[in-house]
């Protein structure tokens, strides 16, 4: 039975048909294309700021430039967690929809006793998050991003912030089942633009849109 109580909308218009997942209006479309774009904005997102190489970094155990599926500071079952070292002394923690309060609690606990200034902020509704999956995703991104995305440079689990379609974007290489996949994270107000830009760029590679599924992240 589909949920009906709507609490939130992504800034990215859902491709029809619409459905509701965890209180979010999302696209119910399912695509089997080899290159797909998914609006993952419903995922819980918490920003952490602390001193680079400080005690908080030690507890999170994720350095700048890397993204990890687990962290000693956070308990999450299975694949349902991603801790992204998005900047020097900056992290983005991503978990299934609705998990933000649990995340904040755990992070708060992790920060206990840390003497440096630690800032925790729920940015779930302030940002947009898009996933691009498919072997040709580097080709698509090459049209919008100046970085060399070859394996030797940006291997799986790499996190970086750079310009994608002239937009400051967190770019995380996070392969799924051995298939190339990237998460792209930007300001909410630029979400639709980023999504459109990626879709435009991917047209020649047959990119398609597929709806958000809460399983995993």
């Amino acid at each position: 039975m589909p949920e009906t109580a709507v609490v939130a909308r992504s800034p990215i218009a859902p491709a029809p048909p619409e459905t509701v997942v965890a209180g979010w209006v999302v696209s119910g479309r399912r695509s089997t294309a080899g290159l797909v774009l998914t609006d993952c904005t419903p995922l819980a997102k918490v920003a952490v700021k602390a001193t680079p190489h400080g005690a908080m970094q030690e507890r999170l155990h994720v350095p700048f430039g890397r993204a990890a599926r687990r962290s000693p500071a956070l308990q999450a079952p299975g694949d349902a967690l991603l801790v992204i070292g998005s900047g020097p002394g900056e992290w983005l923690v991503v978990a299934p929809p609705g998990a933000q309060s649990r995340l904040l609690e755990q992070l708060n606990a992790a920060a206990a006793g840390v003497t440096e200034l630690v800032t925790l902020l729920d940015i779930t509704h302030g940002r947009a998050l898009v996933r691009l999956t498919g072997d040709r995703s580097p080709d698509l991104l090459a049209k919008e991003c100046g970085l060399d995305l070859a394996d030797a440079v940006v291997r799986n689990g790499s996190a970086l912030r750079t310009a994608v379609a002239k937009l400051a974007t967190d770019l995380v290489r996070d392969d799924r089942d051995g298939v190339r996949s990237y998460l792209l994270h930007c300001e909410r107000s630029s979400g639709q633009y980023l999504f459109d830009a990626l879709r435009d760029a991917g047209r020649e590679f047959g990119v398609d849109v597929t709806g958000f599924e809460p399983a995993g992240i």
Partner: protein
Amino acid sequence: MILLPCPWCGPRAADEYAYLGELTPRPDPQRATRTEWRDYLYLRANLAGWTTERWYHRMGCRRYLTVQRHTVSNDVRSVAAAGSGGEP
């Protein structure tokens, strides 16, 4: 366009950064005369050669950097986190 090697992020195209201009010593606002303060606001050496300047990696690490760049060739000989020395 040129590449600037960010000490945090690695080499990135200059358009990822905001150029904030040559470093000018800031007089003490409590004690500076209006003229000194306006000199600080407006006057620039604008050298043709090696200059020390401030850049901000707005699309990357969002850190301020001290860059030594040759304004004729655009060669960059050093980039360091702002405040880590190398500033006049």
